[in-house]
C-alpha cells in the first residue's frame, strides 16, 4: 500500500528526500498528455479546452484519472505566453496541438514592449489560472503542475526564430533586454499559477538546447534566464522542473549550474550517465514517446523497469506525447512504475 500521497511523493522527490518509490508524472505544456483516447472517453475535447477553463480543468483531471499519471498538468500547449505577447496562434484540432502561426516581430529591434503584467492579464492566462484553481480544489492529494514555456522558446515565438538566434550574437544588448522582459512576464505568470494552487512549476524550453545554441549561447542566455525564472519561483516556495530537449553533450557542463529541483531530459540522453557525472542532480524522464506510441506493451514494461533500475528519481515521458498514443500503452508505463 502506498504510504505517501502522490503530492507528498513528488514534493519529497523534488527535495531529494526519501520516498517509497519514484513518482510517475507528465507535466503538461510541451509535455502534454491530453491524448485522443481520453478526449473520446469523456467528451472534454481540444481545441475548445485551450480557451475554456472548465473544459481545460476537466480534461486535465480526465487525463490524470485515465492515464494513471500522478499529477494534473495544465495547460496543454506552448502558445499561451506568445499569444499574450502578440503572436498569432493556430489553435489546431482535436489531434493536433496549437502552434504559433506567425511571430509578431521580425527582429528583437522591432519589439514593442508591453506592461509587465501583459501576460498575466491576457484572457488565455486567465483561463489557465482558473483551470489550475478548479483542478487543485478537486483533489488535494494530486499535485497540480503549472507548465510554462521557457524564456528562450517564448522569445523565439514572439520574434522570428531565425533572426532571433542570430541576434543573440549580433545584437546582444537588445537581445538581453528582450529575453529579460520575457522572463519577467513569465515570473508573473508563474506567480499567478502558484497563487491559484499549482504546487510545482515545470519549465520546458525546447529552443534552449545545446544542439541549437551551443555551449556559449546556452551559458550566456539559457542558464541566466532560466535561473532567473527558477529563483523567482523558489522565492514563492515552490519547486521547479526544467526540461532540456535534444542531445546534451555540448552543454552537459552547464546542467549542474541550473537551479532547478529536477532536470528532465529527452530519450536520446542517458540519465544513468548524467547521474553518474552529477550525483547531486534530481533526474526526471525519459521513456521514449516513440516507444509509448508505437511500442509493444512488454517493451514499455521493460523500458520502465530499466529506468527504475537506473534509479531515476521521477519517471516521465521523454518529450511531448503524440495525441494518438494508445491509452493502454500509457497505463502500462504508469502501472509498471507503481508496481515497485
Amino acid at each position, binding site marked *: 500500500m502506498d504510504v505517501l500521497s502522490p503530492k507528498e511523493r513528488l514534493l519529497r522527490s523534488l527535495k531529494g528526500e526519501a520516498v517509497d518509490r519514484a513518482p510517475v508524472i507528465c507535466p503538461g505544456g510541451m509535455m502534454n498528455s491530453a491524448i485522443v483516447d481520453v478526449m473520446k472517453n469523456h467528451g472534454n475535447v481540444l481545441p475548445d479546452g485551450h480557451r475554456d477553463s472548465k473544459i481545460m480543468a476537466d480534461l486535465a483531471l480526465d487525463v490524470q484519472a485515465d492515464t494513471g499519471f500522478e499529477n494534473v498538468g495544465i495547460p496543454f500547449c506552448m502558445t499561451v505566453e506568445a499569444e499574450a505577447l502578440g503572436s498569432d496562434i493556430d489553435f489546431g484540432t482535436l489531434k493536433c496541438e496549437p*502552434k504559433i502561426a506567425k511571430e509578431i516581430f521580425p527582429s528583437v529591434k522591432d519589439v514593442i514592449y508591453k506592461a509587465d503584467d501583459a501576460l498575466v492579464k491576457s484572457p488565455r492566462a486567465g483561463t489557465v489560472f482558473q483551470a489550475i484553481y478548479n483542478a487543485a480544489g478537486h483533489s488535494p492529494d494530486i499535485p497540480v503542475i503549472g507548465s510554462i514555456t521557457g524564456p528562450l522558446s517564448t522569445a523565439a515565438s514572439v520574434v522570428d526564430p*531565425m533572426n532571433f538566434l*542570430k541576434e543573440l*550574437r549580433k545584437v546582444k544588448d537588445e537581445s538581453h533586454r528582450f529575453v529579460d522582459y520575457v522572463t519577467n512576464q513569465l515570473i508573473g505568470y508563474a506567480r499567478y499559477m502558484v497563487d491559484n494552487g499549482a504546487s510545482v512549476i515545470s519549465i520546458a524550453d525546447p529552443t534552449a538546447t545545446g*544542439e541549437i545554441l*551551443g555551449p556559449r549561447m546556452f551559458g550566456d542566455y539559457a542558464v541566466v534566464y532560466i535561473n532567473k525564472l527558477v529563483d523567482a519561483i523558489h522565492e514563492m516556495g515552490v519547486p521547479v522542473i526544467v526540461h532540456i*530537449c535534444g542531445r546534451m553533450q555540448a552543454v552537459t557542463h552547464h546542467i549542474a549550474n541550473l537551479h532547478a529541483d529536477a532536470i528532465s531530459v529527452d*530519450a536520446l540522453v542517458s540519465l544513468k550517465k548524467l547521474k553518474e557525472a552529477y550525483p547531486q542532480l534530481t533526474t526526471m524522464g525519459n521513456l521514449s514517446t516513440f516507444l509509448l506510441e508505437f511500442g509493444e506493451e512488454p517493451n514499455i514494461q521493460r523500458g520502465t523497469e530499466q529506468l527504475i533500475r537506473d534509479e531515476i528519481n521521477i519517471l516521465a515521458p521523454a*518529450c511531448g506525447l503524440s*495525441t494518438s498514443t494508445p491509452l493502454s500503452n500509457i497505463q502500462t508505463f504508469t502501472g509498471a512504475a507503481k508496481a515497485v
Partner: protein
Amino acid sequence: MEKEELLRQIADAVVEMEEDTVEELAQQSLTAGIDAYETIDLGLAKGMERAGQLFDEEEYFVPELLMCSDAMNVGIDVLKPHLKSENVSKKGKVVIGVVEGDTHDIGKNLVRLMMETGGFEVLDLGRDIPPAEFVSKAEEYGADIIGIATLMTTTMPGMKEVVDILANKGIRDKYKVIVGGGPISPAFAKKIGADGYARNAADAVKVAEKLLGNTDLALGA
C-alpha cells in the same frame, strides 16, 4: 593581391561571419577582374562549406551557421549581377519541407541553406506540410530529391505516408527520399523505406550527393 589569396580571405571572412569584410573583398574581386562565379564557388561557398564542417564538429551552432550564411549572402548580392548565365550548373532539384503538425523549421532552414550552397536547386515548401503536398510539389517541380524534416515524434508517421503515397502512385523510383530531424534515426529511415537519413544540415548535402551518384551508402548501412 593574388587571386588565390583573395578567395581564401573571402572564405575566411564567411567563416568569421564578417559581413563588411565579405562585401569589401567581393568588390575587390570584381575590380581585379576575377570571374564572379569563381569567387562564389571558391570563395563564398568554400567558406560556407567550412562553416558547415565546424557545425558538424560542434564548434559552430545554429546562430553561427546563420551568421556565416548572412555574410555569404552579402557577397552573393555583390557578385550576382556579374554572373554569366552559362556557368550556372546545378547538381539536382530538391523539394524540402517540415511534416504536417510540426512548425519547427530551424533545422529545415539550415538544410535548405546548405543544399543551396552545395549547388542544389531547392524548392522550400515551408513548415506544416501535408504528406500529399510533398508529392504533388515534387511532381510539379521535377524534383530529384524529396527532403522531409520533423522535430517531433508525433509527426514521424507523416514521413512514412509520403513514401507510401509515392509507392501507391507508382512513382517511388522517380525520387530519392531523405529524412532527418531530432527524433529520426537511420533505423527509422530504413523502416519507412526512405533512401537516405541526414544527421544534420551539413550531412544532408553529402547524403544527397551520394544518392544522386547512385550509391546506396546513404543509410549508413
